[in-house]
């Protein structure tokens, strides 16, 4: 049962390859059915986890070596985000890619990415996490280079350089960890009590593993691949470069701090503080860079870099509220940023608008799309009562709680900068311009409805943040055992 969220997309991917390029209808059916089934499986696992039964499963891979998964709340939150958004993105992608080449390859690897991301979410121990993490790196490559243009190939090369560099660091760190601490499992609050005396080795292990994760989490200065990777088709940018891949990195950091080292050990070793500092710098610098981007996707990419650093910073602060805020932001940022990338994809595909300067009039040409975008943009900036506000409230609360006033300042100024780079997009879209309502209103419905759906989600997550099923409450429940059963 626990393998289903991994197995279903993996099989769907394999089937997609075997069906080949021409059987479009069958391929779409297979993928949509798989997405539905995976969503159902993940949600039912989450239901079980809320009841307090964290199931486990493992496959032996050799002497002292297992591929193991466990359905805890932290992991399932990420898995649910990925799997649910996969379905939405599939609908969008089917519309977006309807005239593209190499669709079998695209949808096949897309499904495999989802399988790998779910694996990262559910991995029970550092080694299993590494296994899925590397598969994810690998399966993303064909999607980055999808168009096959020299630009895409170059971006792909850059991506690989970062990904495999990070992978090597992660491998070295994991191997070292297993060598000193044995086959440890993720345990809320930390799993390394037995090995605490190896402070030197543990610091290096943390540094190596964090470096590995930070590549995908695009923490500066390891973020270089992300803006380049924006040459990928919009569905890839939306789901992978705003949700699955980059969040796998952030999620790795969450696991590393909360469930492997534990907040206490991470603080006492003095390894959390440098991470927090790097995240804070990233928030500032990335936001400022985002202000100056004319290309819409690049602007969003730098925004992603900054927002991911919010999560990293929240985790590195090592307080319950901040950790919960980080987890909640992981989910909230997903729905918000995916809305924006969908929108930018629609603009590009339908109107060939790719830069800020040519956006004039698009709000009238595609009012629903742009309205959705506006909601998401405001949410991202932390305007109440939208989703971004809920998570940032928790993050700020955490910073307040630990007395890290500088972090609070970073969060607040980061919010202001977010408004700074989002508002120009909104203004440009309502400015008069070449794009007047033509014969066809809006874009392909397969692209429109997903946008509206995810925009609604960022409203709902914010408005009903106190509902028991909301990501915010989920996050609070998930971090509770990390801090010894803490409750707000």
């Amino acid at each position, binding site marked *: 049962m626990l393998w289903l969220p991994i197995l279903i997309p993996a099989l769907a991917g394999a089937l997609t390859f075997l069906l080949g390029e021409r059987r479009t209808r069958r391929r779409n059916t297979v993928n949509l059915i798989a997405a539905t089934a995976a969503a159902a499986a993940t949600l039912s696992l989450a239901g079980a986890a809320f009841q307090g039964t964290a199931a486990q499963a493992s496959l032996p*891979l050799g002497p002292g*070596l297992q591929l193991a998964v466990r359905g805890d709340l932290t992991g399932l939150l990420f898995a649910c985000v990925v799997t649910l958004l996969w379905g939405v993105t599939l609908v969008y992608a089917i519309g977006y890619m309807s005239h593209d080449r190499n669709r079998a390859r695209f949808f096949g690897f897309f499904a495999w990415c989802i399988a790998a991301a779910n694996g990262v979410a559910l991995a029970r121990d550092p080694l299993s996490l590494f296994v899925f993490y590397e*598969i994810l790196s690998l399966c993303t490559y*064909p999607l980055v280079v999808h168009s096959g243009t020299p630009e895409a190939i170059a971006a792909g*090369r850059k991506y690989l350089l970062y990904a495999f560099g990070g992978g*090597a660091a992660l491998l*070295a760190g994991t191997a070292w960890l297993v*060598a000193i601490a044995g086959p440890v499992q993720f345990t809320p609050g930390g799993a390394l009590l037995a090995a605490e005396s190896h402070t030197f080795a543990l610091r290096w292990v943390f540094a190596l593993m964090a470096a590995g994760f930070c590549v995908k989490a695009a923490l500066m200065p390891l973020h270089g691949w992300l803006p380049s990777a924006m040459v990928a088709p919009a569905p890839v940018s939306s789901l992978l470069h705003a949700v699955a891949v980059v969040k796998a990195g952030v999620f790795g950091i969450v696991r590393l701090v909360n469930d492997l080292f534990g907040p206490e050990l991470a603080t006492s070793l003095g390894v959390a503080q440098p991470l927090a500092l790097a995240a804070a710098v990233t928030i500032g610098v990335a936001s400022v860079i985002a202000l100056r981007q004319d290309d819409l996707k690049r602007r969003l990419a730098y925004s992603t870099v900054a927002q991911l650093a919010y999560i990293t910073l929240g985790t590195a602060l090592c307080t319950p509220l901040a950790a919960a805020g980080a987890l909640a932001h992981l989910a909230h940022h997903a729905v918000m940023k995916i809305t924006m990338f969908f929108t930018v994809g629609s603009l590009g595909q339908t109107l060939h608008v790719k830069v800020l300067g040519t956006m004039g009039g698009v709000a009238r040409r595609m009012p629903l799309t742009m309205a959705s975008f506006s909601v998401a943009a405001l949410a991202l900036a932390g305007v109440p009562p939208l989703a971004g506000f809920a998570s940032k409230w928790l993050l700020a609360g955490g910073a307040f709680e630990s007395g890290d006033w500088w972090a609070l300042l970073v969060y607040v100024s980061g919010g202001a900068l977010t408004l700074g780079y989002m508002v120009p997009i909104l203004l440009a879209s309502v400015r008069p311009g070449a794009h007047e309502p033509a014969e066809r209103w809006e874009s392909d419905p397969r692209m429109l409805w997903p946008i509206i759906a995810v925009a609604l989600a960022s409203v709902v997550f914010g408005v009903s943040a106190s509902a028991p099923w909301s990501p915010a409450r989920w996050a609070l429940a998930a971090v509770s055992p990390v801090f010894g059963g803490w409750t707000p």
Partner: protein
Amino acid sequence: MTLVDHLPAALIMTPLAGAALTFVTRRRWDPALVMVTAVVITGLALALSVRVLAEGAFRYRLGGWGAPLGIDLVADGISALFVLLAAVVGLAATAYATSYFGTGDEDAYGRGLVWALWLFLWTALNALFLTGDVFNVYVCLELVGISAVALVTLGGGADALRAGARYLFASMLGAMTYLLGVALLYSATGHLDMATLGSAPTQGIAASTGLVLMVSALVLKTALVPVHFWLPTAHAAAPSPVSAVLSALVVKGSYYVILRLVLDVTYPGQLPGLDVTLGALGAASIVWGSVQALLQTRVKLLVAYSTVAQIGYLFVAIPLMRADGGIVGVAVTAAAAHAVSHGLAKAGFFLSAGSLQHRFGHDRISEMAGAARTTPVLAMACAVAGVTMMGLPPSGGFVAKWLLILTSINVGQWWWAAVMIAGGLLSAAYTFRLVAVFVAEGAGDPGDAHHPARTEWLPLLLASAAALLAFAIPQIDTLVRIGMNLGRAEVLP
């Protein structure tokens, strides 16, 4: 004796009889005859593994004399595993070859004799994997060498002949040196049977010199840097199904003997420095082979240099096997897993390179843009095989490298781990140099996808098997430990 007791003998006699028969039967029957032989061998190899798993290792006393007087065949876990690997790769290569050699020029050079040569090679490999006698190893090595050289020269061009000649002379140098080593070892100990040699080890310069000569000869035959010079041209010049077998199996043959000598014949501390020297050469091979692979402009040469690099991992495992004075079982498992994984992946890689060459009419990397669309199955096979060799999960290569890295950190020799991680990155570089060309789109209309030929699925099948091998490692681990020489050394987890 029941019939299953004869499995080791049957595994050698079947291809031998097949080889002699294909020489006399009519040419048009050959492919069918060889396929039947291949299927039978595969069945026998499976049966051998099952039997070893179920009832443990056993010896087959040829002629009923028994060692030390006679020659024994040894069927234990490692030999069963290698025989099985040869069977799987051999079956796939045979199926591929029936179509590869079945098309094109009827009067093609050397055609028609390829089947006899191939079955001789298979005989030799099985005999090598099963023998327990150091002099018999010499005869097997010659059989392997001659049939491999003859298969390389099948292309018939001057390049193929030169590559074959260089291979032949390297092979002869190796064989003669090996025989000199055997002469010294026998003179010092009075024994030729590996188990007897191992159970009553003789101290002394002559025995050690003999072993060093034997191992050096085998290192030459395994193409470790700096004596790798003959391999890339030979493996690249050969017809693709042959290259697949050479890279996947033939170099493993001599490595297998080294493994046997290290595990069964030498005792810890007998040859101080040999383990570390082999490991260091292995590390050099990883780096040098990968860098050379990165510089190649032709697919087959790239793949051939990658073989040099991948062989290096097998040798890095050797100092780790001996790291604590006993035998570290994990390192042996890792080496075996890597050998199997690389065998499957490299066979897939070469077969797919062959089909690409056939489709494009050349094997220049720079002119293969768009291959991922026009020949998706082949491009995928190359990519999957490459990923396996990088040691990315969940391939067998990953588990092998993970176990080796972990062992090297555990025994405090972290530098091997560093080399292996760097080697992984280098192999990623050369694999993705190839993949990047495949996915690139040239200018103009690229045309439609080809319908994949049936044999084009074979490389993908092999590569996928390697990529999913991780899930079979526990079985390989169990198998490898059966009959591992436990008398003198404790096997660590």
